[in-house]
């Protein structure tokens, strides 16, 4: 495993941490691997937020707890980060933000740099970010000219004078950074054929790749990014985006769109999804497809709006009253974010069921490099038939899938119903029809499983210990397996969480010890594996503080149990 430097910027909300992150990751991604993530407080201004940028010779995907280089940008920063600094940490910050007791205790090194003062010298306190950018470039020994180009690109809508001053500010920082090249002894490489994207963008691109043309959603952290991403792309990609009055409206709108032949998406978090449940059930019985992206955050209720958890798997598996098939996918990598979202649209359409994409705050708010690839056009396919005069929306078929017509296409009429219904789509209380319709709907599960999205095994095929995870733990678990030289431990990332395929059992039968790693209290996947497939889980490694697992934490926890 190559060297990694973990740079953390810690400051107030609204100060521009995002700008530095964008500038620096754009540039370093050409020469190094990186992984960037942030943790923010649920507020618009003030408080203390941090952005972590891990820069490495190898691929990195995980949150790292220990900080190598820390920039203190406000006085709230240090005590919040006390647990993340140690004797190897070098802290840059102004005299007024330091806390001697903490620094002494942790044996960290403090380098006084008054960024506010420097920024004022440069002409404006806003130049602080550019100075830090310059500092980092100097520290990494990257060409200042490249930095200047980035500044010009970033501020291209600003006056020349502003650009010039930013370039001066960059130089100021660069000179300071040059004195600290020892902090960054990472071999420069050439990273090609990669694209920097965030989890939010991955889901957004996936939706477009799945033919999404309608979005109805109510803003809710951390799912709003997907909504604004698609709003920005709406005109170009023919997506009608509407801010709903509430989440109940959102999913009902989406269902109305699918009924009409659209491919709609609702993006939300647990609380919003809880409100959508009756509509999920409507999608189930009326066999009107729908797609919902659920970016999880810690509950119950308001919980911690800007933090992460994987606590809503149960909610998603059981959402909605009554029994009906559904599909749940959970992306771990950025590529999965695109491909699984794309497939969610395809599968929802093909099987006329609700499909869910389960992510979380850590996943959507992190960004990294993704290897470029070509999307499969197949997933844009629509299974819509032209109706004839005798069209029956709920025709009973062998595989349970009734050819789906839409209003205005063909001579027939399309009757969609939330009641138990006849083949024509008229409400009925006939017990015999009820039984047949129920069986018809449930039969679709057999076909859905034929399209089961296979899990990914990371590590040696001949393992003794099997780590099992879903969603955003992909990063930390794959990094753990890649990093540790222990070939006895492999990691299985389950991409389709529902319905679960019997074929998964093979992976478990081979293992002597099965450990499920999840960001929740109960071990929801572990319990689901037991319930659905009778899989015995030996150990649950759980975290439910609102933070993701760090690589160090996984290393030490697995050391205990393996």
């Amino acid at each position, binding site marked *: 495993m190559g060297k990694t430097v973990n740079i953390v910027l810690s400051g107030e909300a609204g100060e521009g941490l995002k700008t530095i992150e964008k500038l620096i990751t754009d540039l370093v991604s050409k020469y190094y691997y990186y992984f960037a993530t942030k943790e923010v407080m649920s507020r618009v201004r003030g408080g203390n937020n941090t952005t972590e940028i891990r820069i490495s010779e190898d691929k990195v995907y995980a949150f790292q707890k220990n900080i190598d280089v820390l920039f203190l940008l406000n006085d709230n920063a240090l005590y919040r980060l006390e647990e993340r600094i140690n004797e190897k940490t070098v802290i840059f910050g102004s005299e007024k933000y330091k806390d001697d007791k903490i620094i002494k205790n942790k044996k960290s090194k403090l380098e006084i740099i008054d960024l506010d003062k420097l920024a004022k010298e440069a002409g404006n306190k806003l130049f602080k970010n550019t100075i830090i950018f310059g500092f980092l470039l100097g520290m990494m020994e990257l060409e200042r000219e490249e930095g200047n180009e980035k500044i010009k690109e970033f501020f291209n809508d600003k006056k020349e004078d502003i650009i010039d001053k930013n370039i001066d500010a960059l130089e100021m920082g660069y000179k300071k950074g040059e004195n600290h090249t020892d902090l960054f002894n990472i071999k420069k490489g050439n990273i090609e054929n990669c694209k920097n994207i965030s989890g939010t963008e991955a889901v957004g691109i996936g939706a477009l790749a799945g033919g999404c043309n309608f979005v109805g959603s109510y803003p809710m952290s951390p799912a709003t990014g997907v909504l604004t991403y698609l709003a920005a792309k709406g005109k170009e990609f023919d997506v009608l985006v509407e801010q709903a009055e509430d989440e109940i409206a959102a999913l009902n709108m989406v269902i109305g769109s699918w009924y009409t032949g659209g491919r709609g998406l609702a993006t939300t978090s647990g609380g919003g999804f809880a409100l959508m449940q009756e509509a999920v059930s409507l999608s189930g019985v*009326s066999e009107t497809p729908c797609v919902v992206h659920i970016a999880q955050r810690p509950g119950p209720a308001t919980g911690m709006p800007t933090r992460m958890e994987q606590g809503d798997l149960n909610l998603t598996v059981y959402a909605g009253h009554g029994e009906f098939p559904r599909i749940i996918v959970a992306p771990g990598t950025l590529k999965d974010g695109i491909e699984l979202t794309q497939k969610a649209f395809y599968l929802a359409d093909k099987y006329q069921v609700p499909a869910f994409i389960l992510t979380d705050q850590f996943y959507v708010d992190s960004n990294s490099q993704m290897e470029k690839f070509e999307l499969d056009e197949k997933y844009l396919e629509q299974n819509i038939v032209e109706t004839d005069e005798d069209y029956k929306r709920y025709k009973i078929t062998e595989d349970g899938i009734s050819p789906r017509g839409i209003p205005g296409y063909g001579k027939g009429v399309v009757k969609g119903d939330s009641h138990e219904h006849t083949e024509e789509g008229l409400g009925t209380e006939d017990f015999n029809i009820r039984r047949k319709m129920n069986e018809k709907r449930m039969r679709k599960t057999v076909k859905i499983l034929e399209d089961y999205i296979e899990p990914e095994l990371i590590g040696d095929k001949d393992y003794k210990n099997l780590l099992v995870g879903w969603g955003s733990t992909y990063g930390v678990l794959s990094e753990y397996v890649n990093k540790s030289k222990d070939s006895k431990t492999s990691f299985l990332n389950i991409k389709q969480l529902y319905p679960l395929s019997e074929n998964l059992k093979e992976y478990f039968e081979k293992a002597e010890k099965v450990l499920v790693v999840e960001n929740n209290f109960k071990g929801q996947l572990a319990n689901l594996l037991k319930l659905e497939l009778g899989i015995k889980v030996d150990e649950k490694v759980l975290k439910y503080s609102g933070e993701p697992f760090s690589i160090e934490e996984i290393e030490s926890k697995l050391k205990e149990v393996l």
Partner: protein
Amino acid sequence: MTFEVRDNIDIAWCPGCGNFPIRKALIQALEEMNLEQKDVVLVSGIGQAAKMPQYLNSNFFNGLHGRAMAVGFGVKSTNPDLKVIVEGGDGDMYGEGGNHFLHNIRRNIDVAHLVHNNMVYGLTKGQASPTSQLGFETPLQVDGVILKPLNPIALALSAGATFVARAFSSDMEKTKEIIKKAINHKGYALVDIFQPCVSFNKINTNKWYKDNSYYLDDNYDNTSLSNAYEKALEKDKFPLGVIYKSDEGNSYTDRHNVYQKENTPVHKRKKDIKSVNKLINS
């Protein structure tokens, strides 16, 4: 082709229910407008009135209680070529669906919103509805309703509705004409339809509605918002007819950026994977 159902179906309404003449009025309106069944979508929720689509032969989506307007929005905005009629009762639309009522008025989505107003809950057997009058006794409001009745006409006007009308079920001919105007209106159109509930409302009977309403005369200027507010607030007798109509301001789909670009319904537009690939590979 007729919107009348082909077979004799078992209609679940009570004999004498105001829903029957509304059904006839709606069928006649659709046929006189020469609309084709395949181009009409009736969207409803739950309640006695919301069963209407089941008793007509056209496209329909009979969804959840209170949510018909949200589904109707999804239908119309996905395919503006369809004629969308959202229909249900006062509880469905003004109670459970109150939020969607309000915000779809603001959207000015081009749907005809037909609300059967019998001032009582029928399907759940006789509780108060948002339009029940003060003092109305029910098995649930045992000492009579103590909540002020909602005034849907005034509410719709204040939310910016571009078409607000009131009809009375027993006058099928006039109800039909009002429904036609609502369907023809380019934007959101509310028709609050007074209707007796023969089983659960012994106060607001057919006679009561008749005695407590009157038709606006031909000289009434329904393009004036202040006239409309005045009529909306009248309590002695409720005015019937088109209370307000404005052709100012385009409907939702005319204003939305995807339809400013082109008229083709969004679901009919060709998707091209190459353009999405650019997001990954550029």
